[in-house]
């Protein structure tokens, strides 16, 4: 299994797309705080796993894949949708890791760095097993 970094993929992303993700992430974080303040931590905590930027991310993935195919003179629409579906499929494993993150903080009162490591370990392991 080869996991790698592809630096050239950053060139495909426009600055406006980075901005959209920054704003969406910032807004949901601020909104989560408002919900915690108004409705309490039990309801507010649900929003820590809200699919905040997933629509933006999946749309970008789909658009980039479509354009890549179109540059080769091929129909890219279907390929773009398939790439977004694959992204969502991968995110299901990330969601299991997210539950592990929550469990580590809740049960062990662990530092956030350790909880983040638990998220990465659980989702990464599931990804390896599924491959």
């Amino acid at each position, binding site marked *: 299994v080869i*996991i790698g*970094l*592809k*630096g050239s*993929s*950053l060139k495909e*992303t426009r600055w406006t797309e*980075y901005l959209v*993700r*920054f*704003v969406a*992430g*910032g807004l*949901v*974080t*601020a909104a*989560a*705080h*408002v919900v*915690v303040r108004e409705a309490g931590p*039990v*309801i507010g*905590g*649900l*929003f*820590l*796993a809200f*699919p*905040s*930027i*997933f*629509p933006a*991310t*999946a*749309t970008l*993935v789909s658009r980039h894949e479509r354009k890549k195919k179109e540059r080769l003179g091929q129909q890219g629409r279907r390929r773009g*949708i*398939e790439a977004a579906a*694959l*992204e*969502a*499929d*991968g*995110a*299901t*494993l*990330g*969601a*299991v*890791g*997210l*539950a592990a*993150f*929550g*469990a580590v*903080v*809740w049960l062990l009162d662990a530092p*956030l760095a350790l909880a983040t490591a638990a*998220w990465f370990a659980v989702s990464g392991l599931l990804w390896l097993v599924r*491959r």
Partner: protein
Amino acid sequence: VIGDLVVRFLIGGAIVSLFSLLGDLLRPKSFAGLFAAAPSIALATLAFAGAKGAIEARSMILGAAGLFVYCRVLSDLLMKLDRPTHVVTLLTIPVWFGVSFGLWWAVLS
């Protein structure tokens, strides 16, 4: 209060952007997909939560179950419906609300 919201907005935006950047860079795509469900909002929120953090984290597990079902349903619908991605991703959001609040009602309320 406004200052507090602005700080949270900036920190949340920065953490979300960082994980998104990692997702853009990593290959294969199925592995990069893990980063679409990174604990960005949780990190930005729990860093300030103090004693309430454990309660929020417990609820977050139910939210993560909602996210799991949302992503599973979304992946299937994208393939079956053959509609624009932004439309399907947004129209599927009620699935997250249904599962997360359904579990909250069943387990925590």
